[in-house]
């Protein structure tokens, strides 16, 4: 056991598990964000957002989530550095003309960096005012006082450039997932000739559903709810 995470497959296992964990987070996140599309002035969204700020979640689950991100990011950096070293210092003058290789699979680190940049913007925009500085405005729903998260989001999506940024970020995430999803199962060993095709199809479908849904939320917020 001692050396499992010292091995290449062990390190990849961490990437796989943390990646899949982040996928589940994406599902939760997307579910809540879909509430933004209910035309109730953001009431449901605010209740959900307030729920996510409960101490148990804030102090129990958020650190786990953070750990998931950190593991995923750190190991991505470690693996990429090792892989560059293994590739060697001499590069091919004639480049690489191998066909039938998914572009995303060769650019996961770069795609990951765009997702990371997106994540940082996200944290500054919402997580800091809602959960750290509590600078966000308040609203009382059913007698409970809470931050008006909806107002924060709604205000943000009033800017077209920010909507565009979100769409780009979501698409980066999509492309990252088109490879990352099936790759996670491959690394876990849960793949063979049949399941490989299935995971690929499921992964690509999932990636586009998530990416397009996040994008649509931003766009519809701008078009319908301003």
């Amino acid at each position, binding site marked *: 056991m001692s050396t499992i995470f010292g091995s*290449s*497959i062990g390190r*990849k296992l961490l990437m796989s598990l943390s990646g899949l964990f982040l996928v589940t987070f994406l599902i939760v996140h997307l579910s809540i964000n879909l509430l933004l599309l209910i035309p109730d002035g953001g009431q449901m969204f605010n209740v959900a957002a307030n729920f996510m700020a409960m101490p148990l979640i804030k102090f129990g689950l958020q650190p786990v989530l953070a750990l998931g991100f950190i593991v995923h990011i750190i190991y991505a950096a470690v693996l990429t550095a090792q*892989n560059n*070293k293994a590739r060697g210092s001499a590069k091919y003058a*004639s480049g690489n003309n191998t066909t039938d290789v998914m572009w995303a699979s060769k650019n996961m680190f770069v795609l990951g960096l765009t997702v990371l940049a997106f994540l940082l913007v996200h944290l500054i925009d919402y997580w800091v005012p809602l959960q750290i500085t509590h600078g966000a405005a308040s609203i009382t729903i059913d007698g409970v006082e809470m931050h008006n998260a909806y107002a924060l989001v709604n205000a943000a999506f009033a800017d077209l450039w920010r909507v565009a940024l979100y769409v780009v970020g979501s698409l980066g995430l999509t492309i990252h997932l088109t490879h990352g999803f099936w790759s996670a199962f*491959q690394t876990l*060993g849960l793949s063979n000739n049949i399941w490989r095709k299935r995971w690929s199809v499921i992964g690509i479908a999932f990636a586009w559903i998530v990416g397009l849904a996040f994008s649509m939320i931003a766009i519809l917020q701008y078009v319908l709810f301003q």
Partner: protein
Amino acid sequence: MEKNISLTLKVWRQNGPKEKGRFETYKLETVSTGSSFLEMMDILNEQLVNEGNEPVAFDHDCREGICGMCSLYINGRPHGPDDDVTTCQLHMRKFKDGETITIEPWRSAGFPVIKDLIVNRNAFDSIIAAGGYTSVSTGGVPDANALPIPKPDADEAMDAASCIGCGACVATCKNGSAMLFVSAKVSHLALLPQGRVEASMRAKNMVAKMDELGFGNCTNTGACEVECPKGVSISNIARLNREFLVAKFKD
């Protein structure tokens, strides 16, 4: 039909392992499209020797696609612009008249250059020595038909065992990973009852040796499978992952 074409070759020349290499450009006037790529290299070398120059050193042997000796990274692809072939099976009909062909050695930290286009692939032997076998000595084994093996398993083992150890997988991998090679051997033996006995130990030892020798981490791009002259599938990599993880968690 066969015809003659002329070519410009950009060939990597390097005198020794520690020397600095460079590209040299050569012209060949009449090459039959019916020739194999290595026959074209023979023509180049004949020309070089006749001019009093040292011929280009390149690995080759059986010239029928099975020994795994030939390598060459040709125009951006290991074993050149054809699918499911080794360089010796690549034919000049795949090239156009007047084309410039860039010929490089396998490049990977795991395969240092020895001379010109020849690289050192001893790392593959070391990985096999670490566990790519059944620990059965000569003699005293049961009858060959004592253990029935389901045909699909035997066939799948055969597909994995068809790896020729050429190293194209490492050469094309952006991570310089040897996972396809290792997984082919692990799969070949894990699929058969005779190899099943030591499957866990084998997966652990071979992966440990692969890591130790400085090969990269697989990121499942699948380029190895595309360039493998024998079409070894990356499903074998999933099997290796499975074997390895189960073995490690059992410990």
